[in-house]
């Protein structure tokens, strides 16, 4: 096997790690007791989740009237939050699928957490779909069920039905892809486990993985095909979400540029969220040798690229609104920028178009503080983007007598807060009980991408555990 990498490439794993070091460094947090930081963060998340759940149930009990919706603005924070979370959910599968096809080795350190983030973000998005139905017990009406069960058959010509198929397929395939990637690492934890309970639980979830050459060969084949399937899938999901708007006749929504523009925006916000989570994880779990500045910089480059695509899309929309000569379209866009919601539009432009351009500077791109700040800013901006698209296109109806404004109520805000409690509760559980970095994949790239090769990469690590004392007789 040839492990040849150009000497000018910056290493992806620093600190001269051996295979055993990788296992040790990443399994440590799974095996140890929860840290104080984790316990505090988890407690806060659960409290927020309980408060949010109570508010969501009140929304259902009392009806959607508790939201600030009115006859003109019939969709506001609910769909804004839905699109925002689905967008965030795009980074994980992009990292694990598209970057796998492009053979980007830096993906190995971040794909596990990014995929977990994807799955939880899609769940948060789905919760807003359930919420905005108002009658969640009839949610199964969205499934293709015959007349005796639902109303009619679902309308397969409706983008909302396409959405049901797209989101559920995306969730299922992402979950399966993530779980298959977890199998080898779960087996590692199983074989290291000291207590009977954890050996049993990790044993059951690792499905009896034994790492035979035949299994690995099929596993690699499986990953490749799943990546091939997920690549068009990830692009299709936000394309279809954008069609919820683009196939309508509302000025400001009826835009053919929406699919690529939404996909770029989704990747943009997803990577920003990955940055926020990874920058915390690498410090809290002491994984600075695995999630290096190199990884941060690579993701910042993607943020700059997708942010620029989004910026071009905003300008194109504006140009076409004027160039088409359609006065409704022109009005919708002028109103967006200068009407009563100008501040939302300004926030969107500043956060999404201006802020990522700072990453052209290498120093900012490689600065933890700047990266973290800009990522937060980008996610705020992407929330405003969806708010601008949804609310400003609706609030000026065709008849001036129907013009209205949207004012969020306590329940609009609380139901959004619910999704944060839900997301962080799930993510913290993942971070504690599952390895946050894919150990097997990092081991596979360590020879080609480690900072300085140790004398022997496979040598005995500091404090190496000996599985079976009798094997110890002739360790080199």
């Amino acid at each position, binding site marked *: *096997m040839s492990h040849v990498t150009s000497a000018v490439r910056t290493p992806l794993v620093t600190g001269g790690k051996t295979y055993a070091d990788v296992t040790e460094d990443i399994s440590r947090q799974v095996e140890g007791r929860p840290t104080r930081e984790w316990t505090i963060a988890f407690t806060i998340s659960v409290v927020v989740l309980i408060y949010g759940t109570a508010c969501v149930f009140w929304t259902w009990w009392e009806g959607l009237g508790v939201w600030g919706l009115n006859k003109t603005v019939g969709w506001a924070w609910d769909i804004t939050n839905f699109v925002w979370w689905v967008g965030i959910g795009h980074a994980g599968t992009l990292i694990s699928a598209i970057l796998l096809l492009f053979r980007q080795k830096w993906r190995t350190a971040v794909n596990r957490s990014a995929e977990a983030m994807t799955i939880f973000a899609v769940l948060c998005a789905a919760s807003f779909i359930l919420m905005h139905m108002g009658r969640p017990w009839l949610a199964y009406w969205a499934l293709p069920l015959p007349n005796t069960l639902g109303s009619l058959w679902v309308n397969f010509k409706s983008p909302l039905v396409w959405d049901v*198929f797209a989101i559920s397929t995306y969730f299922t395939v992402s979950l399966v892809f993530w779980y298959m990637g977890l199998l080898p690492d779960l087996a590692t934890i199983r074989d290291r486990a000291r207590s009977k309970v954890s050996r049993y639980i990790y044993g059951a979830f690792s499905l009896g993985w034994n790492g035979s050459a035949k299994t690995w*060969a099929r596993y690699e084949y499986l990953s490749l095909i799943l990546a091939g399937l997920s690549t068009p*899938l990830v692009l299709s999901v936000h394309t279809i979400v954008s069609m919820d708007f683009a196939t309508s006749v509302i000025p400001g929504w009826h835009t053919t540029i929406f699919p690529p523009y939404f996909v770029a925006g989704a990747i943009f916000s997803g990577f920003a969220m990955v940055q926020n989570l990874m920058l915390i994880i690498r410090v809290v779990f002491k994984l600075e040798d695995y999630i290096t500045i190199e990884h941060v910089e690579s993701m910042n480059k993607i943020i700059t690229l997708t942010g620029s695509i989004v910026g071009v899309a905003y300008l194109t929309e504006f140009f076409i609104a004027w160039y088409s000569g359609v006065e409704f379209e022109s009005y919708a866009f002028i109103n967006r920028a200068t009407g009563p919601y100008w501040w939302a539009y300004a926030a969107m432009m500043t956060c999404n178009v201006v802020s990522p351009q700072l990453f052209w500077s290498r120093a900012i791109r490689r600065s933890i503080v700047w990266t973290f700040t800009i990522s937060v800013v980008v996610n705020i901006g992407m929330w405003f983007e969806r708010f601008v698209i949804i609310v400003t296109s609706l609030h000026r109806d065709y008849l001036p007598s129907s013009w209205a404004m949207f004012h969020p109520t306590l329940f609009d805000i609380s139901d959004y807060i619910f999704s944060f409690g839900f997301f962080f509760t799930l993510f913290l559980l993942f971070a504690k009980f599952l390895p946050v970095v894919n150990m097997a994949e990092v081991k596979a790239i360590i020879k080609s991408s480690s900072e300085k090769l140790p004398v022997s990469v496979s040598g005995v690590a500091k404090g190496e555990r000996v599985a079976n004392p009798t094997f110890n007789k002739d360790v*080199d």
Partner: protein
Amino acid sequence: MSDITGNGKFLVGIYDDDDVVLKAVKEVKNAGVRIHEVYTPFPIHGLDIALGHPRSRLGIAAFMFGLSGTITALLLTAYTESFDWPMIVGGKDSYSPIIYVPVIFELTVLFSALGMVGTFLVSNNLGPTVKPLMYDLRTTDNKFAMAIDLDKNNLVENDIEQILRNSGAAEVNVKQF
């Protein structure tokens, strides 16, 4: 793993390095030893070829499952929209296949992915109640184990042990199942 015959006595060569074990597979095979299987903590490219494992046919499974998803979606949309309860929406024909492309695509991907993963789990005998036969617990950490089934080899134990050591094995252990 059901392919254990005889009294299930194995010689297990433990290697420290992925390049060494890949080379060792060829050397051990050339010395006339039949290798049962090699267990590694991460995938080693070319190892399955060196061991002579046939190329995986998972791609065929993925295609067939994907095709079944396509057909299901085509039949579902055709039956519901133009046969069971025909409807004209947006001035389009009750059966307009182009507009069903999103649904057809999603079901193709869904069937293909789930079917292929199911095939993978079944063909590798993976499941929540499966107790793996671990030749060495360290193979999920940092060691590479080559298992030799003594019943399927004509050479004597000591000779095989010597061949394993010559090929770079750091340890040679006996494992009885």
